[in-house]
C-alpha cells in the first residue's frame, strides 16, 4: 500500500519535472521560461521527496528531506526573481 502511494507521488513528481524542463527548452523567452520552470520543478521535487520519505526508515531523514525541499523552494523563487531582475536591468542598459 505504501509502495503504491509512494510510486504515484514519485512518478507524478517526475512528470512535473519533465514539464518544467520542456517548458524551459521550448518557451520563447526568458520570462516565460522562468514561469514554467519555477513552478514545475519545485512542485516536482516536492512530490518526489514525499514519495521517497515514505520509504525512509528513520523519521530524521524524512525531516531532512522536508528541510531540503523548503530550502529549494525558498532559494528557487528568490533566485528566479533575481535572475529576472538582472535580465530587466540588462535590457534597460542596452
Amino acid at each position, binding site marked *: 500500500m505504501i509502495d503504491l502511494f509512494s510510486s504515484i507521488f514519485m512518478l507524478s513528481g517526475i512528470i512535473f519535472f519533465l514539464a518544467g524542463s520542456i517548458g524551459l527548452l521550448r518557451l520563447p523567452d526568458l520570462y516565460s521560461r522562468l514561469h514554467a520552470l519555477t513552478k514545475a520543478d519545485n512542485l516536482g521535487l516536492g512530490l518526489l521527496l514525499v514519495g521517497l520519505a515514505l520509504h525512509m526508515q528513520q523519521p530524521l531523514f524524512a525531516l531532512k528531506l522536508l528541510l531540503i525541499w523548503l*530550502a529549494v523552494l*525558498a*532559494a528557487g523563487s*528568490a*533566485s528566479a*526573481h*533575481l535572475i529576472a*531582475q538582472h535580465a530587466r536591468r540588462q535590457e534597460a*542598459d*542596452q
Partner: protein
Amino acid sequence: MNIISLYLVDILLVISLLSLAWASLTTADARRSVILFMAFGLVLALVWARLLAPDVALAEAAIGAGLSGALLLAAIGEQPGSSINVNTDHSEDVQDSNRSVVVTWTITGLCAALAIILAWTLLQTFDNVNNKATAQAVSENLTDSGVSNPVTAVLLNFRAYDTLLELAVLLSAVLGIFSLGGIRSPYQLAGPVFDGLARWLVPVLMLTAGYLLWVGAHAPGGAFQAGATLAAAAVVLRLAGHHNIGLPQGKSLHIIMTIGVGLFLLVGLSMLALGRSFLDYPPALAGTLILVIETAAMISIAATLVLAFLGGRPQMQKHKPC
C-alpha cells in the same frame, strides 16, 4: 535493474560533463565561459556522488558549484571594459586570433597523444590487483584513529602532514593576495528579495557548516566542507552589500587566518614533547584532538576563502556599521 539504471546515469553524466567542459573552454565570451564552468562544477558534484565519493561531492558542491563561480564572476566584473557591456568584449577572448593554424593543430595533436597515453596507462592500472594495499591499511587502523569516517582519518591522522601543509599553502595564498592589491569595491545594497534571501540563507549556511564539522567524525563531512559552507555565508552577506560580514579586523583577523596551521603545529609538537612522534596522537585522545584541529582548520579555511573573494586585506572601519 540497478546496474542498468547506473549505466544510464554514467553515460548521461559523462556526456554532460564533456560537453560542458568543451563549451566552457571554447566559447568566445569570458562571462559565458564562467557560467558554463559553474554548470560543469554542478554536474561534477553529481559524478563524485555517483562514484561513491560523498566527501568529495560535498566539497565540490560547496566550492565547485558555488564559491569558484562567485570568485570568477567577481573577477569578470572587474575586467577592463566590462562595466558597460560584457558581451561586446570578444576581441580578447578569441583563442586562435594570432596563432597560426600549424601551432593550433600541433598543440591539439600533442594533447590528443597525451590523452591516449594517459588513458592506456590508467586502464592498465585497473587490471592491477595489487592496488588495494592503502585501503586495507586504512581499514585495519581505523579503530585507532579516533574517528570512524575513513576519509577524515586519512586527512587528520594517517596523512596529517598533508593537511598541515595544505593549511600552510592556504595561508601563503592569502598573504600573496594581500600583497597584490586592495579589497574589491563593495556590492550595491540588496533589494528586498535578495535581502529576504540573505536573511535566512546566511544562518542556514552557518548552521550547516557546524553540522558538517560535527558529522565529519563518523560520516562524510569535515573541516573543508564546513569551511567552504561558512565562507559561502560571508560571501552572501558581501553580495547583499553589507560592509560587516563577520570578519574581525587587525590582530584578530591575523589570528583566525593562522589558527588552523598554528593549532595543528602546536598539537604536533606537543606530541613530540610527550615522547611520541610528530602528529602521532594517542588513540584515546585522537577523537578530541581531531575535532579541535578541525574546528581551527574550518575557521582558517573559511577566512581564506572569504578574503580571496574580497580580493585583499579589509580596511579598518572608519564609521560604525549600521
